[in-house]
């Protein structure tokens, strides 16, 4: 028990699991019997959840948003990797710098420009998401590339690998696990953006639109249910990414302090 409050302690797995379960139970108890009625009750949220699943197609809407998010993430990842890796060539460094700074652009303004450039609502949604995710990914990915040390590059060069092959070995292959971590962290941003974009382009529905409607009619139980669904989907995604990292990059956790 004492070790749970000791700095840098490593409690046993069982102790830690019990502690986490206890904290979750405490949260649930607080929610059930909290005197201040800030949130709808658990029963109300559950009823709203069932209602939305059966009458408003919550699962289908989640699927629509999820596929759009994954589509955007896939394209954005490829684009961001390309822009980041191109920083090996000084000519392209300003491009990566500019891309990184574009994360300060507002989504509403972006949507307007995208609507002028592409035709369908889906394309606007997708292009806004791709753009916004790319600029965040470029920021994270270039930071990963900048962690490359002189020693790492020297090591590759002394093996006679040449400049491009050294870059491939040290930066591309050597940091692929860190790039996956950047993608995992930035996937959360897509969920923030998708709910906003779906309210601007309502033709295709999506969980964002559902959330907007629940908000508009002050259905707090519905809002809470959707938020919890998004939270669960996000947690599942996080787990999936961690699993992918463990499977494809087993070496990546070997040097991490536990």
């Amino acid at each position, binding site marked *: 028990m004492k070790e749970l409050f000791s700095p840098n302690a490593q409690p046993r797995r069982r102790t830690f699991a019990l502690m986490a379960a206890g904290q979750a139970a405490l949260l649930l108890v607080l929610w059930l019997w909290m005197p201040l009625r800030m949130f709808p009750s658990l029963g109300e949220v559950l009823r709203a959840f069932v209602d939305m699943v059966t009458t408003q197609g919550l699962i289908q809407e989640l699927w629509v948003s999820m596929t759009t998010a994954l589509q955007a993430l896939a394209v954005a990842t490829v684009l961001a990797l390309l822009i980041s890796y191109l920083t090996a060539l000084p000519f392209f460094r300003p491009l990566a710098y500019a891309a990184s700074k574009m994360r300060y652009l507002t989504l509403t303004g972006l949507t307007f420009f995208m609507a002028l450039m592409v035709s369908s609502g889906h394309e606007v949604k997708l292009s806004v998401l791709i753009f916004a995710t790319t600029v965040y990914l470029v920021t994270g990915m270039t930071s990963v590339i900048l962690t490359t040390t002189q*020693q*790492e590059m*020297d*090591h*590759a*060069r*002394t*093996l*006679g*690998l040449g400049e491009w092959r050294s870059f491939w*070995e*040290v930066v591309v*292959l*050597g940091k*692929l*696990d860190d790039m996956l971590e950047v993608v995992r962290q930035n996937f959360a941003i897509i969920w923030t953006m998708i709910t906003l974009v779906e309210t601007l382009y309502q033709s295709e529905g999506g969980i964002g639109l559902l959330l907007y409607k629940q908000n508009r009619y002050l259905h707090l139980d519905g809002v809470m249910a959707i938020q919890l669904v998004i939270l669960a989907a996000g947690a599942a995604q996080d787990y999936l990414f961690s699993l992918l990292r463990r499977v494809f*990059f*087993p*070496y990546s956790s*070997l*040097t991490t302090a536990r």
Partner: protein
Amino acid sequence: MTPYFYKAPVLTLDNVSMEYGGETVLRDISAQVLDVCRPNMNQGQVVGFYGRSGLGKSVLCRIMAGLITPTSGTVKVGIEQEEVTPGAVGFVQQQYPLFNHRTLQDNLLVAAARKYEPEEAKRQTDAYLDRFQLSQHRKKYPAHLSGGQRQRAAIAQQLLCSDHLILLDEPFSGLDIAMIDEVKKIILEVTTMDELNTVVIVSHDIQTTTALADRLWLLGYERDATGQLLPGATISAAHQYNLAEMGLAWHENVEAEPEFNRFVEHLKDEIRQSA
């Protein structure tokens, strides 16, 4: 004294100087490593560059490895005495870097692929793993290797892709007595692998470096006529030692010999005077 004779040069530093932002780090360094031969012996050689901490030894290493170009002067390597390029000299850095995303076997295969066809690269890799007692660790990632295993792996990797000349930057730094003995064994092992193999040690460990080397160069500062220190470390004519000529090379337990210890004390005095 062991009979020996010299053949062609394998490493030549000709008036190498290096400046960073107007500050001279190294000044007019000249040294030549000749291929030494001993009748009835099929063994390469070990030479040493000694320098105190912060003197620019790592800069000198990177210049000798072809990783940076000196401000002036040239470095030539091999029997053909061609100007050094990255990859021409095996260079084991202080932290023994390996590719952390590859297993030990794959690390060696990447290096071997430079000189050999895939089948031969695999055969050579297996041979080196065996020779450096690393076979049982072949599937491990570098993070799983001990310091000694990592060092052996880093040396094996460089040997697999370089041409006989291997540079070790501070190979004894931070090691205990047992580990130093282990590294000494590895260095001697490298020299016995091929008569042309030359190990260049760049270190601040005067005792161990002198015990292993048959040539020694002392990096230090020179003073002008007024006694002022001149900028940039260099190797003065008085600080180039031929230990073979002095009868202090190739002895099994040279560190126990009084003559060796007297010489080390002399070197220490020289180092103190150039401080």
